[in-house]
């Protein structure tokens, strides 16, 4: 069976959830082969096998990831040349999109971003993308070369299909020419909560929360729901939360089962990052706030009284169960 390459997004071997979704999608097309580069990639093998990767190509050589994007692309281009896969799937993160774009140029294949579904149609690959914030579903075909697709998180339920993967050590590619080199990397502080882009529930706060201290209310609701914490740009600009919590056009794009927006007006730039959430609940004291246009359930009221009550009710339910 022909192969589908899945580029693994991981942090020291801890695989991000979109990769498991991409593996699930890849299995429907052909044989899923995972490609993991950078430190700790060997540690990802077992997890990738659980989700049906029959082979994991590993390259731990630090020289690959120290050259920004171009290093990974070099390795992928070689693999595409050797294996002529049916497609390459990359998780749809900002860096994943850059990898996909560069790779497409290198191998002269079509690139499609934010894909939510792939299938065969008359021997040809069809990819469905959610465009314009989810208001239009676009089906495209790739007319030339190996398709390079970025997979949008939370587009399908990742299902396990355990196998014992074959591990292939790939030699580091030689990278010549002028490139950007990574001198230092800093992580966002770990919160103990699920990652924003992977969480099935997100509780987000905006300017209406009022202060960094008040964000405790949002965090407590998030913890009661096992949710990630998000924010509008107004809240991150104020320094109430780190910029990594920002949801929107220039922050994270999330597509959770449930998004609870508290004290967020619903500026178009914010909606761009969350309006494909399956269910949206909004709490805002202004009945005219545009967030109510996209909400399934809206409450006009003061978040400072409603949010703690909601947290208490949910905790009480959890105890009863």
């Amino acid at each position, binding site marked *: 069976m022909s192969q589908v390459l899945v580029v693994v997004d991981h942090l020291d071997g801890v695989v991000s959830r979109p990769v498991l979704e991409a593996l699930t999608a890849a299995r429907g097309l052909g044989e899923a082969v995972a490609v993991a580069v950078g430190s700790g990639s060997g540690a990802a093998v077992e997890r990738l096998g659980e989700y049906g990767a029959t082979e994991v190509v590993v390259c731990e050589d630090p020289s690959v990831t120290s050259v920004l994007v171009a290093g990974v692309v070099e390795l992928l281009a070689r693999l595409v040349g050797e294996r002529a896969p049916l497609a390459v799937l990359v998780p749809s993160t900002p860096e994943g999109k850059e990898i996909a*774009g560069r790779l497409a140029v290198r191998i002269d294949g079509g690139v499609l971003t934010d894909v939510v579904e792939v299938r065969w149609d008359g021997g040809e690959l069809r990819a469905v993308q959610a465009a314009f914030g989810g208001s239009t579903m676009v089906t495209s075909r790739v*007319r030339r070369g190996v398709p390079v697709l970025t997979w949008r998180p939370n587009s399908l339920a990742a299902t396990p299909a355990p196998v014992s993967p074959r591990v292939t050590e790939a030699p580091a590619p030689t990278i010549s020419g002028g490139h950007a*080199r990574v001198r230092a990397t800093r992580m*966002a502080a770990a919160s103990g909560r699920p990652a924003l882009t992977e969480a099935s529930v997100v509780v987000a706060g905006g300017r209406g929360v009022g202060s960094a201290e008040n964000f405790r209310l949002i965090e407590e609701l998030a913890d009661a729901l096992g949710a990630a914490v998000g924010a509008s740009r107004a809240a991150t600009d104020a320094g109430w939360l780190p910029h990594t919590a920002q949801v929107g*056009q220039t922050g994270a794009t999330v597509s959770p089962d449930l998004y609870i927006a508290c004290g967020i007006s619903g500026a178009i730039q914010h909606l761009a990052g969350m309006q494909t959430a399956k269910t949206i609940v909004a709490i805002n004291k202004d009945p005219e706030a545009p967030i109510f246009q996209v909400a*399934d359930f809206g409450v006009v009221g003061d978040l400072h009284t409603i949010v703690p*009550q909601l947290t208490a009710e949910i905790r009480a339910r959890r105890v009863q169960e």
Partner: protein
Amino acid sequence: MRVVVLVKQVPDTWSPKRLRPGDFLLDRAAADGVVNELDTYAVEEALRIKEKHDDTTVIALTMGPPPAVEVVRKALQMGADEGVHVVDDALAGSDAMVSSLVLAAAIERIGFDLVITGVESTDARMGVLPAMLAERLGAAQATLAAEVKVDGREISVRRLAGGREFDVVAPLPAVVSVVEKINEPRYPSFKGIMAAKSKPLTTLSAADLGLDSNRVGLAGSATEVVAAEERSAERARVVIHDEGDAAARIVEFLASRKLL
């Protein structure tokens, strides 16, 4: 130093965006065209670099239908020195592969040490073009920058990607995309608006760039839209006013959707 800054015309963010039935191209007539907001940060950054480094020329470049020249004018009004508009009926329907081919050809023709772009177009939201340009131009890719410093023939960038932050160093020539945290774009001054009228503005066709019409537009694209379906957001849109029972009613709603 020659700094090429990329600006794109996009439909106004608040306007509903749709694809035309038949050819599935973005219906640009349905909405007012405005400058891609995220590109104004690129223009601002180019101007700040010019202010710090003598002998710097900032060239604003766009590819798009005739009205797109407006976004080049806007960049000139902000302070860019020259403008270039790539416009050709043959370019209609170009996908990312073709756009990057055309823009790379234009940038090579203009001559560059640094290319600065926005982080994504607000219409297509692909965020792929800057990396594609770096690949095509054989230039260093120092993208997703929240901070840029040019020092001689070296550039350092603080990169924000996902939950991580990177310190990156690259030689020139380089391609940089900027995130909106990098600066606060200026508004054109009256003086700037007047001065823009006499700044050089060049128009280029695909043929001027040595590109055959079968390599561009729909004909040259590597991808093709075969269907588009508008999906009305199926939102319940229930709005209640809190009368002390809001929390209970949210819980009831969540339970009804099996979200608890």
